[in-house]
């Protein structure tokens, strides 16, 4: 499935924003901005889940866009493998001709 580039950026920015928000919520008692809470409220577990989910989405889209920028024509793994196989076949046939 191909996702348009503009939409990928929009998803990346949105998930990064939620990720930063959940990270801030988790960290503010630790850095002393709010009163420490003990034992942690149940909402703390939800914040952690949100952090992990948004991190996974943001990381995946960021990686996707990074690779897209570095290799605009795609990785073309199949074509590269095919050309490698072709080269091997050519070399093999050359060697057999010499023999």
């Amino acid at each position: 499935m191909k996702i348009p580039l503009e939409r990928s950026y929009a998803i990346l920015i949105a998930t990064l924003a939620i990720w930063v928000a959940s990270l801030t919520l988790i960290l503010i008692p630790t850095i002393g901005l709010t009163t420490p809470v003990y034992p942690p409220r149940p909402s703390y577990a939800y914040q952690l889940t949100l952090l992990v989910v948004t991190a996974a989405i943001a990381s995946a889209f960021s990686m996707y866009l990074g690779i897209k920028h570095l290799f605009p024509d795609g990785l073309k793994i199949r074509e590269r493998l095919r050309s490698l196989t072709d080269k091997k076949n050519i070399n093999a046939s050359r060697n057999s001709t010499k023999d």
Partner: protein
Amino acid sequence: MAGLLLILISLSVVGVSAFVYQQASLTITQTIKEVATITLKNSDLGDLKEGESKAYTKAGVPNLGDAISITTTEANVYLHLDSDLDSLTTHASYSITVKFSAVVGTTYSVGDTACTLTIASPDYSSMDLDAAGTWKFDFEITTTTGSVDSDVPSTATVIVLAESTA
């Protein structure tokens, strides 16, 4: 360049999230947790001459007011105070009186003494916060310096730990 930056962002997001998740998971599973570390330096309190006694309250040193502040989400959370007052060998006496400045329920009143830490008894275990809510504590310090050969900086550290029975 933009591609490398995006890949770097991707790896950073994963790294930071993994670290925070691991630390936060420890917090959730722990039954005892450090909630504060309080450092009292004589440079903050003012110099003392040899043999001089002095008392500090929040009226003179505002930072001593609400020195500990904790919100409990269930009843019967126990606070433990661990200090290193026993290492203050240059002081003839050093005591920290911990007083309630905000309470929940009717067991304690504002101004009651929760505990006293001294050189001979630097730790206290434990005060029972018997109702859920926000609790605050003031510090009052009384100290007498001993005989010294030169200016001696001194630092007292108090670690506050919370423990639940759940």
